[in-house]
């Protein structure tokens, strides 16, 4: 029996959910793989929900909200878009970014809803089952991503992105998009790497070189992250074997 992907859809109550009902009323057919969760606004979808879904093996996740400007809560969908960008950036590290999608569907677009769902289901089908089911290493990476996405730094940047880019920052100036992006991208990359180091050390104490080979990045970069983690007392330096210090995870981190 051919593989049937499981798809999860978050539909905002005012637009995309109504669009889905319209598709039903108009008896439009679309593949039955999607399971829908109604949320009051697409902005309500917390990145944690997507990570949780991926972790339990769901093959594709789609978030639908109102077209920009239609949002019943005025800006919910704009926030959703920012959060989705962050999600995409994180998942590109483990190339699962093609398993999530954000679409705008208004209450009157029953047809568009059906097309999006069937197109998305087919694209997931081509991708095959989610590799997370058996790839343990990938699951660890996702664990790190979830931890990184939850850090105060990333949530602050995502939360404030729109105000300081579109309207004005505290100095009354607009921050150019590229300046924000390169700060945001370095933040994403750094936090991801640091969380992977933390989780790896949680399992057993390691040296910089071992971590570098595990994370496939240059040891000097690992050292920089190690220093910052040591500064915030989440890891400490254990004893030195020969010329190589071993770092340990500290509970109080």
């Amino acid at each position, binding site marked *: 029996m051919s593989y049937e992907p499981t798809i999860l859809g978050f539909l905002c109550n005012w637009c995309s959910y109504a669009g889905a009902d319209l598709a039903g009323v108009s008896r439009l057919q679309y593949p039955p793989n999607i399971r829908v969760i109604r949320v009051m606004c697409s902005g309500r979808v917390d990145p944690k929900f997507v990570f949780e879904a991926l972790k339990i093996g769901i093959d594709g996740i789609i978030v639908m909200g109102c077209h920009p400007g239609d949002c019943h809560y005025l800006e919910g969908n704009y926030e959703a878009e920012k959060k989705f960008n962050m999600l995409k950036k994180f998942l590109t590290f483990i190339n699962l970014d093609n398993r999530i999608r954000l679409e705008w569907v208004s209450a009157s677009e029953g047809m568009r809803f059906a097309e999006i769902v069937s197109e998305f289901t087919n694209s997931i089908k081509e991708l095959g089952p989610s590799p997370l089911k058996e790839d343990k290493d990938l699951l660890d990476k996702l664990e790190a991503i979830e931890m990184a996405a939850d850090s*105060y*730094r*990333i949530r*602050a*940047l995502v939360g*404030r992105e729109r*105000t*300081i880019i579109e309207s004005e*920052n*505290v*100095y009354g*100036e607009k*921050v150019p998009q590229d*300046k*924000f992006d390169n*700060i945001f991208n*370095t*933040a994403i990359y*750094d936090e991801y790497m640091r969380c992977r180091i933390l989780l790896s050390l949680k399992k057993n104490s390691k*040296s*910089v*070189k071992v971590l*570098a080979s595990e994370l496939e990045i240059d*040891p*000097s970069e*690992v*050292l*920089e992250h*190690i*220093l*910052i983690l*040591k*500064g915030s007392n989440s890891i400490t*330096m254990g004893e*030195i074997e020969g*010329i*190589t*210090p071993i770092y340990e995870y500290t509970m*109080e981190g």
Partner: protein
Amino acid sequence: MEKIGAVLIVGAGIGGSQAALDLGDAGYKVYLIESTTSIGGVMAQLDKTFPTNDCAMCIVSPKLVETGRHQNIDLHINCKIEEVSGEAGNFTIKILKKSLHINMDKCTGCGVCGQKCPVEAIDMFNEGLAKVKATSVKYPQAVPLVYAINKDYCIGCGVCEGVCKAEAVEYDLEDQEVEFNVGAIILAPGFEEFVPAEGNKYGYGKYKNVVTSIEFERILSASGPYTGKILRPSDGDVPEQVAFLQCIGSRDLREGQPYCSSVCCMYTCKEAVIAKEHMDQVNPTIFSMDVRAYGKDFDKYIIHAQEEYGVQYIRSRISSITEDSKTKDLILKYETEDGKIISEVFNMVVLAVGLNPPNDAEYLAEKFGIELNEYKFALTDVFNPVQTTRPGIFACGAFQSPKDIPETVTQASAAAGCVNQLLYEKTGTLITEKTLPPEIYVAGQPPRIGVFICHCGINIGGYVDVPDVKKYASNLPNVVLADRNLYTCSADTQTIIKNKIEEFHLNRVIVASCTPRTHESLFQETIREAGLNRYLFQMANIRDQCSWVHMHQPKEATQKAKDLVRMAVNKARNIIPLERIKLSVTPKALVIGGGITGMVAALNFASQEYETCLVEKEMELGGHAKHIYTTLEGGSVQDYLSDLIQKVNSNENLHVYTQAEIENIDGFIGNFKTTLIHGDRKERVEFDHGVVVVATGANEYQPKEYLYGKNPLVIKQSDFEKLINTTDDIKNKKSIVMIQCVGSRDEERPYCSKMCCAEAIKNAILTKEKYPGVEITILFRDIRTYGFKEKYYRQAREAGIIFLRYDEKNPPNVIANDSQLKVEVNTPTKEVININTDLLVLSAGIYADREENEVLAMMLKVPINDDNFFLEAHVKLRPVDFATEGIFVAGLAHCPKPIEDSISQANAAVSRACTILSKDEIEAEGKTAVVNMARCSGCGMCVENCAYNAIELIEDRRFGLIASINQALCKGCGACSGNCRCAAIDVLGFTGEQIYAMIKGRL
């Protein structure tokens, strides 16, 4: 134009801070301008400092904290000089105070904004080795402890304003334009380290494991990113083979600066020693040309490093460095002295980068209207190295020429000395004496204790249950009031405390908040303004030593806070009001020694209308400089000397006693009494004075080796200088040989006399100019022409003077053959070179005569070091003071040095002395030791233990032989009371009873 009693100091490094403290204590209003966001300069970045290896932070932070809260010093950070006008005695300066976007008065430095800021930037304080947030403080112990927002990194997201409970973040704070009206200016902007340019041959910037010395300093530092563990940046491993390369960017015509940066030899050796000390696996190797360890105890430091720590010196300059891409190790190729090419693998390379002028040197020169020398450092007068080309503006520290910390501190005091000379009538005019209410008499009252517990935003309140601690404190015995507030150190809470003192008639105040080291004097001032004696105050440190370090154990942290408060209350019950003893000061000075140093000091005192007495044991003034004609830099010493002697003899405030000897000096700071015998009729003169400056100089070594005294063709360098300057018998000499380090750097005198290399090269160049035909060879162990003197060493080589190195293990030997001398030199390449010469000149060093110095040392009760020179209180922080207050040292008596350094030290000694003479009474420390006469059995142990000679045994009518403490000299350290068997000595503020009560507070 009327002079103003205020001074502007540009740059708040160790130099600027020292000058500010000197002038602040001498009663001038000081505006201290700093371009970065906190004071301390490069010294705050260092881990340990040579030659004593003591920790830079331990030494510099008490001085910075004192500068930060000194009543007469206004500190302005993050400033830029806009405009300067006026002339000596009356300048007006416009300063742009760039905004920190954080209100300095409200910010308590708690650091929550720094933690929450989402933006990470390169941490320049840690030389790029670590990351720091956009809102940050330079380093944890910064003074003032104020966070600043770095505008070019900040994206203005507003998170920090959200988390700041003190509402100190004000993004819209504009830059402020401020104008100062001052009488004099001191420039101490420090230096900039040389950074090897793109594509340099050392691979810096390309290879990760090639670091500069200042980066290595941060790696070494216990408060640095690696917390004191020596790791290499490429993979965090411990580098077992570390190479240190000297003269990077110095003594280099192509890639760096032609001059020598003076300090790299010493700090490199220190870094090697400290690296070995931190981690025994590290084996340091230093590649150097000359090892220039010219200062006091520097040579001993190098020898100690080689013997004790196995530091290896290789005398060669590295040609190229290549990196093994896999292991990231570095392959160094170099040529040894005997010509072999060696390539060796090292795990890490440290480049001892030189000192460049500060980046804004031209900008400052143009604004202040001073000239720069050819290397863009401040051009200063040959015989007064702090006086710039514009009167009223002085320069000190590395901005004048590259120098180490002791010399910088000395020059800072010297600059302050010159300001004293300029503005002495105006001391005390601009400083505001605070009017305080009379003290309430509390003796005899039962203790009524008020406890104020602080939340410090969330720093304490977030982890310690402050209301619970307050409830607990309120029912401790004798506590009549327990209160808690968000920020106890904020201005409004100070008024709350004052009101509560009146309302509840409190006679003891306890604040449970942060560390007393930085906040005790703030609260002491507050309760003094409410009429309470400032010592009726105690602090319990429930932040830095409780809530911040037990964040994950709130229950235990709260219990600990209660214990700490109870111990503080126990101690508070036993504290008594203390007065700071006032001592009268006789505004006169005694200067011992009539050489250049003594005369400069005496003249400086006299020109400030202090009656001064100058004592010289010889027939006439002049001292060591009598037989020196010129300095290496070309100044004529004889003219300067004669002009100085003329001024000294003509100044009416100055009594000169030649052929004089001091019979006895007694008394203490402010109240010395000296009797001296002078003239051939041995008249006796009594003189009482407030301070003493020891400028007794030193003697020239009379060589015993190299046939000196046995063969007329062997003369000393000073005789040779007389010959070439006054006669021309050199005319018919075909070859002259000079031998360096005669009587210096050997077993008996293991130190460098610092001026012989300069003297030899000066005479050699002068001889070459007068008689080009003469062939001159100089046999040396290390040519130590440090700083800008390097230019003359190159000039000598270009003039054809031959320099031959000999090894100290087998020095040259001299054989007389009829009218000539044969000098056999065994060079490091092991073959012997014979030179026939008509004249052999020995560069004789300087030595201190033990008997002479010991007599004076006994009278003044000051120590001498094992080389018989006088030992100063602290090499770096008090280089011209003695441990015993009120006595100062300058010139050759302190250690061998060239004339310009002696002049600087003379002015520095005067400036330090003026901090005492400028006041009519001085306040001694309140918390001093006190003797319980009934218990003391006069065993004399405390007299020996006291480092400040503050205790002596006296015969008391009732109690017999007992100890008695001179409150003026006592510093309150308690070394005496620690050893006292019968607990007869107590330290006020830390008495046995108070500590007993704290021990009892265990419960």
